[in-house]
């Protein structure tokens, strides 16, 4: 009893300095976290703030550096008005939405069907096909864009909506994600249904699919964000400005000769980015799981 209380007392002395060091360490870490968050958030907030300034203010506002460089003191919505009345940006947003919905639909269909087959059914060459599928995760779209364009041209699909998403119908990450989810369902559940005489297709629709709803949400979210952010492929395949998606339309604002478009550009960047960023943060449970499982942005 006494011996242990003595060591306790001795330890308390050591403890106090240790605790002080721990306290300082903790404070420094919290400060660091605040800075890290600010660095990540800054460029997007900067765009949002700048979108409320006139183009002239954006260009001249940084010299000399002052409060007004960061915060729009003369806040105006003129960029948004210009964007949605003169530039008809809502049309580009609608096109982006159409492409994203198409992408989500085809990816959900192909990934859930194939994911289930790879997880639960036995058929010849199953593992070979799955291997060939995973291999394409190493082939970025940048590498096949020229022949892919020729193929779409051959199908007569250049400058059509399906061309925006059809080439990405088979998504190795999506199939991998769904296969993992189907594998995690206890096999007894399907077994019971099978013994009750349910057909495999019936088991898929009424037992397997309802049990992977969270993963389906992940798949939908990841595919939606991926399609929303696509730039290179729409730039190449969509030559009809009326069907062009928002990302390409924004980038086009950069290169209008002799008339700086910084204000509308920031407004468009904000309009297209902020909703998506909020969506990803609110639904981060699904988003992060998809990122970590499949490594797909």
């Amino acid at each position, binding site marked *: 009893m006494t011996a242990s209380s003595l060591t306790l007392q001795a330890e308390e002395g050591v403890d106090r300095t240790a605790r002080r060091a721990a306290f300082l360490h903790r404070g420094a870490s919290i400060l660091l976290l605040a800075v890290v968050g600010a660095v*990540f958030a800054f*460029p997007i907030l900067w765009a949002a703030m700048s979108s409320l300034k006139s183009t002239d203010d954006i260009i001249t506002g940084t010299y000399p*550096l002052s409060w007004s460089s960061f915060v729009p003191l003369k806040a105006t919505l003129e960029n948004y008005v210009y964007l949605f009345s003169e530039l008809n940006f809502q049309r580009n947003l609608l096109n982006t939405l159409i492409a994203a919905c198409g992408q989500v639909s085809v990816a959900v269909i192909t990934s859930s069907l194939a994911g289930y087959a790879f997880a639960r*059914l036995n058929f010849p060459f199953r593992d070979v096909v799955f291997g060939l599928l995973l291999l*394409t995760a190493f082939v970025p779209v940048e590498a096949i864009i*020229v022949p892919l364009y020729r193929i779409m041209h051959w199908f007569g699909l250049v400058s059509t909506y399906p061309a925006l998403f059809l080439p990405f119908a088979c998504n190795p990450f999506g199939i991998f994600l769904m296969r993992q989810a189907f594998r995690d369902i206890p096999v007894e559940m399907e077994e019971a249904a099978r013994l009750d005489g349910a057909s495999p297709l019936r088991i898929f629709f009424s037992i397997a699919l309802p049990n992977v709803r969270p993963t389906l949400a992940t798949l939908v979210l990841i595919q939606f964000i991926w399609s929303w*952010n696509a730039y290179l492929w729409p730039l190449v395949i969509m030559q009809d400005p009326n069907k062009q998606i928002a990302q390409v339309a924004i980038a086009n604002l950069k290169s209008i000769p002799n008339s700086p478009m910084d204000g509308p550009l920031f407004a468009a960047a904000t309009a297209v980015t902020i909703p998506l960023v909020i969506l990803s943060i609110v639904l981060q449970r699904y988003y992060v799981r998809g990122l970590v499982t499949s490594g797909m942005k």
Partner: protein
Amino acid sequence: MRPTTAPARKKRQWTGQNSNMILGPAMILPAVVALALFQYLPLITAVLNSLQSFSPFDQSSTGWVGLGNYFEIFADPAFRYALLNTFLYIVLMLVMTIPLALALAVLLDRRLPGTTWARNAAIGALAASEAVTALIWNQMYEPSSGLFNAILHAVSLPTQPFLTGDSQALVSIVVMTVWKDVGLPLLIFLAGLQAIPRELHEAAQLDGANDWQIFRKITLPQLRPSLVVALFIMTITATRMFTPILIMTQGGPQGATTNLALYSYLQGFEFQSQGTASASVVCMLAVLGIVTLVQSYVLREKQEK
């Protein structure tokens, strides 16, 4: 080792057995058709096109030229720069993102106040589009009206030609991409850290190990699977870097930021030269394959030790 899973697996296969030489193939059919048409067909076309020459007028093949396209691009200094830059992007991206992501993951894993803020901000940067963030950074990098030079000016440092300087442009693009993408390895490491049993740390602490020892001897070995995944993903990300380059510098100044992805795009769409475009794409895939093989070799070596 795990006796409980073995029968379950056997049973699982048996469950599937009752079926269905038709249903299985039918269910993968949509995916396989898309895989064949939009992945393997263009890939094989690219390889075959790299061995042919094409008419500049109607883009039809004018016959087989063997390795002619490869000799042609290797004789092109612009291609050799692009090849070198591709490696440079990969090395810079890995050297900058992996340690940074690891450090941030350890910081975020302590669950202090402020963790949610930092984590949400990183997720936001990750979810924002490459094109839009490249445009935003492009404006901040502007030589005369951009924010970064305004800050340098305000603290009396010399302003920088971020995107127009021979030596700065590539690094400027990498910095932007690191900002954008470091969240991905960060989240992978964070998931890995959270899977490490707490008892391991506590046991080491009782044995008198300090923080650094714990990190070296326990955390890092336990994180190995996450490290492998993060390395592969960041290697692919770095090899295919394209959109920020096209938006911020178009590959300039004088090709200083052109990598193989951009080179093949320019060959294919600007110069309408399918043969050399395809040959450079094959080189790009070869680079990716070689780097990935080297990585798996190095990492396997470590495991055997």
